[in-house]
Each structure stands twice: as C-alpha cells, then as structure tokens.
C-alpha cells in the first residue's frame, strides 16, 4: 500500500475502515480508530457562508442529523440499501462508521478521504470518484435512516441483535387508497438522503457512499429529485410542484421550534436510542400529468383548494392566509371544496398531525406509453409514523387522487445526530 504524505492536516482523526477501503487503495488510514478529538471544520457549529452571505456548508455532527430542518436544498439524490446476506453486526457498525466519516468530509466540500480523487497512488484507483473536485459543498447534507427490515427481516430474523430495540411503530406502512406500488421500488434496510444545491454534489455523495458499502450493502432503489417542493424555512420562497401549484405553504418551518419539537423530533416516549431522531417516510407519487394538464383551471384550483397564481386559499386572502373551511359562495357551496386537497391534509382534520415535508419533483424519463414518468418524490419527517398514517388515511377521498398514483413507499427511523467524531447509529449500537 502506498502511503501519501498529507498536504494539509487531516480534517478529522477518523478514517475509513479496512473494509471501507477495500476498493479504495492508498488512503493509508485503514483501521484508524474513530472518535478522536478534533477541532476540524467538520465540527464547526454553524454553517460556513460564501462571499454572497449564502450558507453553503452545514455541519455534519450535532444533536440532530442535518437535512431535516435544514432549509431545503434544490436537489436530491436518495438511495435505499439492503445489507448483503453475509454482513455481520460488526461489519454493519463498521459500515455506519465509514459512512459517517465520509459524509462528514463530503458535507464540508472535501474528498471522501485525504488521498481523495487525485492524491493517491497512480497505480491505484482513486479513493474519491472526483466529479465534485472543483465544486463547493453546495449546502450538502447527508442523512441516514434505518428501515424496519434492519431490525427484523420479513421472515422475522434478527440479523444484528437489535430486534428488541425496534420501535413499535417502525413497520411497513399500511395499504392506502391510490397505492400502485411497484415491487422492489420501496422499503430497504438503510437509507441515505443526500441534498445539495448542485445535483452533481448530491450524486457524488451517493455514488461514493454506495461504493464504500460494496460487499456489505447495495442499493435497493434510488431516486433523483430536482426542484424542492417544500420550504422548511420562512426565508424560502414557496416552490411549485409539477402540477404547477405552490407546495408546502403550510409546512412546518425551522423557525417554529415548538412545532418542530412537537411534530418532528422523537421524544422520550419512544425507543431511547431514537430520542432526538425522527421518522422518515418516502412516497414516490407518480402524477398523471397528461390528464391534469387538460383539466380546466377552475377544476385544478378546486382540486387543490388554492388558486394557482398566488397560492391563496380559495376562501380568500393571500398565500399565507388561514384556510377558512366554513366560508361559502353565492350558491351556498363551500369555497374550499369538501374534497379539496388542502382541506383533507389540514391539521384540523388530521387529528392535529403535521408533517415536515421535504419532497422533490422528479422526472424519470418516460414510460412505455410515451408519457412523462414524472411526479413528486414525497419525503416527510415526523416524530411518529402515526402522523403520516393519519394524514394519508384522511386523503383517501382527496380530489387529487384522480391524478396521482403512489408507486413507491418506504419508512425509516432516523437516528439522532452523531457527536463530534462519533457516528450516526452509535446510540443504537454503542
């Protein structure tokens, strides 16, 4: 193995495991212990700002994982993984450490290891795949989650000795109206959500993390997203989904810590290792956009319950006006239709449940009929899966259902953030 003299100080005292370096020759840090103290930039408390004052770097370590209340970035690469049949508990822990190490570096705009893309041996393939070399961190966040099958397989096998710590509600979601799930396009033992303002940076993260996992875990399904469909900060303009409507106007915002604490972070009433974590639900929602596009404007607005231009509720006002479900029009009809999406999704009719939504538009080319294979890759974070179930169950008579199909579904428990130099999942395995 070739040893490379570092051109600059190691950003952390951690390193990839031997296993993680299996395909990554030349890093010279194999077997290094995780957890050494460091004052590196990776652990800086706040985000680093570029010259324009826009935050482009987020810390990886902290009480909560980044990528949840973080102001939603513009691009997504999401991947669900299955562990290989031979992976042991120790190897799983090692993988999580390797992933945290690499994620901590990449979120700071660094290569996946010190040797990286170009500082390794010319006789070995580079550690880092290199496509992000000249790009800034671009607000990259990397968020890890654990699926129900990590704890017990569908056959009830406890592969890693953690079945007893499985949260009671961490289970495959029930069947919902509009489900047209594609086998194999949902579920997963583990997941990684990579969000960035540059699509190449997000892809670089998933690509390198999946490479590190080779032999231990492989991608089960993955999803690229563009155009965030929710704002998670009051500083963000409400974006539009592919139906052309503003989406996420009433979303939970980071600036509302009470709601975030009540609705997003797992409290003391759940599995202890998950305190400060959250639950992540993904739903790949295919839009029947051809049918939608030839629907008259008035009907589109009735279905949503907001006007298309400004996003104001049909009960009146402007975008952020409260919805008035009681107000009626000249013919005594409710101004916000009884089946309108905004009415049925509203917390007043979902047992108070709210979701922190963080979805992205997607276009996966076209289907065999020549129609755009497009829609919304819905992502929500909540302190309990029951919140999502309450909301989704309530949408069974949503007028929007005529124009959508749910083709993918997954749920993951998202552990709390890692302490400096530790790894995501330490609260479960430590």
């Amino acid at each position, binding site marked *: 193995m070739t040893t490379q003299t570092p051109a600059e100080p190691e950003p952390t005292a951690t390193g990839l495991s031997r296993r993680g370096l299996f395909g990554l020759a030349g890093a010279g840090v194999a077997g290094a212990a995780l957890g050494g103290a460091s004052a590196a930039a990776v652990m800086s408390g706040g985000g680093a700002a570029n010259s324009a004052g826009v935050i482009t770097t987020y810390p990886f370590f902290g009480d909560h994982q980044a990528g949840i209340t973080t102001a939603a970035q513009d691009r997504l690469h999401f991947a669900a993984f299955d562990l290989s049949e031979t992976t042991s508990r120790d190897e799983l822990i090692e993988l999580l450490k390797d992933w945290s190490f690499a994620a901590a570096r990449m979120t700071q705009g660094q290569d996946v290891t010190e040797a990286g893309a170009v500082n390794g041996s010319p006789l070995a393939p580079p550690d880092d795949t290199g496509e992000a070399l000249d790009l800034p961190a671009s607000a990259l966040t990397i968020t890890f989650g654990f699926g129900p099958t990590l704890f017990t397989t569908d056959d009830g096998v406890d592969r890693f000795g953690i079945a007893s710590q499985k949260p009671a509600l961490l289970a495959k979601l029930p069947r919902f109206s*509009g489900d047209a799930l594609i086998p194999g396009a949902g579920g997963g033992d583990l997941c990684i959500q990579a969000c960035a303002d540059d699509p190449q940076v997000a892809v670089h993260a998933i690509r390198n993390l999946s490479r590190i996992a080779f032999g231990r875990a492989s991608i089960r399904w993955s999803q690229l997203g563009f155009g965030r469909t929710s704002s998670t900060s009051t500083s963000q303009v409400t974006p539009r989904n592919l139906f052309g409507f503003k989406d996420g106007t009433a979303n939970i915002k980071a600036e509302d810590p009470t709601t975030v604490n009540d609705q997003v972070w797992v409290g003391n009433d759940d599995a202890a290792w998950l305190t400060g974590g959250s639950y992540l639900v993904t739903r790949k929602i295919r839009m*029947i956009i051809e049918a939608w596009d*030839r629907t008259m404007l*008035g009907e589109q607005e009735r279905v949503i319950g907001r006007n298309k231009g400004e996003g104001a509720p049909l009960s009146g006002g402007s975008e952020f006006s409260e919805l008035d479900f009681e107000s009626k029009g000249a013919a005594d009809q409710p101004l916000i239709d009884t089946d309108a999406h905004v009415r049925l999704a509203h917390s007043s009719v979902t047992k108070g449940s709210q979701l922190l939504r963080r979805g992205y538009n997607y276009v996966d080319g076209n289907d065999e009929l020549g129609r755009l294979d497009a829609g919304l890759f819905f992502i929500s974070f909540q302190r309990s899966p029951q919140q999502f179930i309450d909301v989704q169950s309530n949408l069974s008579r949503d007028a929007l259902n005529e124009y959508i199909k749910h083709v993918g579904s997954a749920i993951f428990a998202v552990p709390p953030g890692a302490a400096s130099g530790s790894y995501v999942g330490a609260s479960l395995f430590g």
Partner: protein
Amino acid sequence: MPNRLLIGVAGAATLALALSGCVPNNAASTTALTVAITDDTCAVSDSTAAAGAISFSITNSGTGVNEFYIFAEDKLRIVGEKENITPGQTASFVAQLEPGTYYTACKFERVGAPIGVAEFTVTGDTVTGSTSDRALEEQAVTNYIAYITSQVDELVPQVAAFATAYAAGDDETARSLFASARVSYERIEPTAEAFGDLDPKIDYREVDATAEGLDWTGFHRMEKDLWAPQAGDLNSDGESALLDWAPSTPQERQDIADGLVANVQELSDLVNADDFTVTLADISNGAIALLDEVAVGKISGEEDWWSHSDLYDFFGNVQGAEVAFGNVKDIASSKGAESSALVDDIEAEFAALKTLLGTYGSLESGFTSYDTVTAAERKALSNQVNALAEPLSNLTHIVLGVAE
C-alpha cells in the same frame, strides 16, 4: 365550478317545451308520422322524412308503459324522446331533425335494450339559424338526461343476469356476461360517480376498497372470484393477489350479487327521479372525464386486472364521451369559425380512435384480451387518446362561452 351557469331543466314536462321551441317559424316542411307500439314492436309509418320539424303521433296498443326514442347514428345518443306512454294512450311530440341517419326504437316498461330499432333517414337541406342558443342548450340537457336514463335502464337487466349466474356459481355464464354487463355503466361513469357512495359499492377496485377500509363489493369483487388469482400473482398495488383475499363463499356470493342488483336499481331510481338533472358543463366535462378514465385506468390494464376485459370498458368510455360531445357539438359549432374547426378536429379524432379500437374487435364480436395487447400497441392507443383528449378538453370553454 361556475354554478351561475347551471341550467336546471329536467323531466318529461320540459321536453315538449324544449322541442317545440325548436320549431322554426316558417315550418313549411312539417312532416306528420305515426308510430304504432306493442310490447315487442315499434313501427314508424315512414322510414324517411324531410329535414325540419317532424311530428310523431304515437299509439301504445300494448300491455305496459312504453317509450319512444329517436337515436343519432351511433344508436346511443338520443335526439328525441317521448316517455310514459301508457297502454291505450296516443301521445304526440315534435322533433326538429337535421338531414342524416337516425334510428327509432321503443323501450317496453322502460327497461332493457331498445325494441324495434329501425333506421330513419332525414333528407333535404340543413335547417340553419332557426334555433336559439337557449333552445339548443335546453335540448342538449334534455337529451342527455334521456340518454343517461336509457343507459341505466339497459344496465339493470344485464346486471341482473350477470349477478344471477354469479350467485348460482355458474361461473362460465357469469364470465361470459361480465364485460358486456359493464358497458352501459362505463358509458355514463362520471354520472354514476357523481352519486358519491354508489360508485364505490358498484365499481371499486380491491386496492381502493381495502385502503379505504370499505367492505369490498360490486363488479370487481365478482371479477376476482370468476378469474381467481394463482399463488404468486400480484394485485395492481404490487401486493400479493392473495393478501387479505379469499374466494367468496356461496352466501357471500349471494349477498354480493343482491347488493350489486340493489345498487344498480338505486342508480336507476336516482336518474329517473324528477329532480335529476345535469348542467351543460356536466355534459361537456363528462366527455373529457370519460377520456381520462381511459387514459388513467384502462390503458394501464388496472381496471379489469383479473379478466383483462379492459377494451370493453375502454370502448364504453369512448362511446360515452362521444355521446356527451354529440349532445353539445351544435352549441360549440355555433360559436364561430374557430369553434367549428375544433368540433371538426374532435370528430376526426373520435373517428380515428374508434377505427383503431375496431382493430381489436367490437362489442358484438368481442374484444381482444388486454393482456395480449403489446406495449407498442398500448402506446398507439394512448397516443390516439391523447390526440383526441387535447382538443376535447377545450370543449367546455367553448360550449359555455365564458368571457374571461
């Protein structure tokens, strides 16, 4: 929805009014014909007439209530109707007909297939400019309501026959009746869906009923019993076909059959009620809604997941869309050259779609099983549905002529 545009006319009383309103002032060419009705015949005194106002004097010599219809060339869309002709009664009404091919028929006791269907040709020149917008609109609504009720009345006995065979465990007969029993329903699907809880009971697919926690009943539950899945088959939501499912027991079959018959009867009662009405917008939106039914559920093969008789439903939806369009096309054509051109486009695309569907069979001879229709063939069908749906989706705007 622009409720201020709602046109509330319904029932037989309005019919005569609407039609008499169509009689041009210079009614020089009024033709008087007679119609002799028995329980199983429907004889019109002449099979041709000159364009313009045509009066029919109808005598019912039979034993039960009868109805007289004039259908457009598609034998579906109704252009004139006289209801409730009791035994011994002679009733009359006037139809304003343009040159073209029509069909006359009767319907004994208001239920089942039309009786004594006979071609009726109207000759001469188009009578233009004789009809007011208002009269055209009232006529469109009246005729569409008549069409809805006629379809439901055909549905009732077909469903009864299918349900009887299913309940008796005569699966072979039930399978042979399934697809055709659904066609009338598919032609008027948006109307049935407007009655909230009826469509879920009659036509819900398993995945939707299960997800909504509803007791799964109706056509598709019967379909799955009749084309029972094998281990390893998947449902349309990607789950195992056998999950939460078991073949219906004889008692369940009886209950489900009775339920379908009762629900279809309720639909019949609702559309035959005096207060049943539709708006002009309902008609033109119904046309595009039926096309979207095709684009969303039929093209993908999800509708008849077990029987693969999707093309029957497909055809029924297209027929229903064309009837709805036919009811309002004169209104659309009257709105100027551009609107008239759009109507021509729609007619051409309907013809192309029906020609394409014709390569897969017909209602009479049966349609190809949809699981044997290749991806390339499905794409061609989808393309033609889109080609029609784009101009058709502008119909309501033109028909209602809403000023921006």
